[in-house]
């Protein structure tokens, strides 16, 4: 029995849909451990800075730990995917680029106060996640990125006194929940 044009189009559409879902699922699973790890880093960093401002140096330790953790995750994913880490090295490279970019930006344009510094990081990360969602098949990153940007702005303007606590809960907690969500995609 010969296939009609409509049947052929329908089959091609089904193929594309399944391939996209699979790719989104792959991206989600690859990025989930990074989100969870950086969520923990943020929750601890903001929480400690909010309650004990004299310990703000802890960020350096936490970020160094986060970068080392990202390298380890990248290596583990490279082994798991067998082909040199189809996704692993990209995620690691992206997080490392963000870290370098933020450091240079903060040096060139030093923000005025603590809240501005604290808002800068999640805003840039939210932008990065949104771009991943728009440009790759890992579309789940888009709502996550937009939520991060929106919630950061909300906390910054609506509760400046509790902003660091807000970021510990919403920024850190949000990344952890986002990571758990991505893992289940």
């Amino acid at each position, binding site marked *: 029995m010969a296939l009609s044009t409509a049947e052929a189009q329908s089959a*091609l559409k089904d193929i594309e849909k399944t*391939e996209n879902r699979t790719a989104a699922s792959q991206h989600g699973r690859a990025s989930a451990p990074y989100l969870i790890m950086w969520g923990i880093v943020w929750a601890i960093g903001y929480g400690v800075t909010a309650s004990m401002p004299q310990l703000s140096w802890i960020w350096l330790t936490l970020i160094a730990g986060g970068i080392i953790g990202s390298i380890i995750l990248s290596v583990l994913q490279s082994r798991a995917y067998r082909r040199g880490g189809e996704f692993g090295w990209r995620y690691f490279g992206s997080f490392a680029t963000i870290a370098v970019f933020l450091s240079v930006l903060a040096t060139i344009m030093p923000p005025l106060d603590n809240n501005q510094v604290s808002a800068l990081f999640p805003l840039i990360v939210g932008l990065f996640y949104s771009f991943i969602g728009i440009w790759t098949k890992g579309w789940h990153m888009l709502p996550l990125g937009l939520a991060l940007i929106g919630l950061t702005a909300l906390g910054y303007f609506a509760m400046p006194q509790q902003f660091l606590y807000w970021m510990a809960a919403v920024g850190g907690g949000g990344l952890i929940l986002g990571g758990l969500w991505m893992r289940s995609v």
Partner: protein
Amino acid sequence: MPSSPSEGQPDQLIHQPVRLKIMSALKALPEREMLEFVRLKALSGATEGNLGAHISSLEQAGYIEVVKDFHKNRPRTRTRLTRIGRRAFEDYVGFLKGIIGEG
């Protein structure tokens, strides 16, 4: 034996909704990468028994490879496309595109 696109018919083994989803999902992975049964079940939307039957058909045709092992003390079933399966799927897609004039 699956029919070849060159005979003017789609590969009947692939041209079945659930098997088409299985092949599409596996094709979306990098070569040699495997997909766990549970994830394939979620991606294809098939029931466990139905999926198992279709996987067996594709395995018998040499289109996919099924690997069973233990992971964290739990039995795990994973599948991946074979080289023959990858080529058959590409031929199938080419056949469909030929019908709609994109081939």
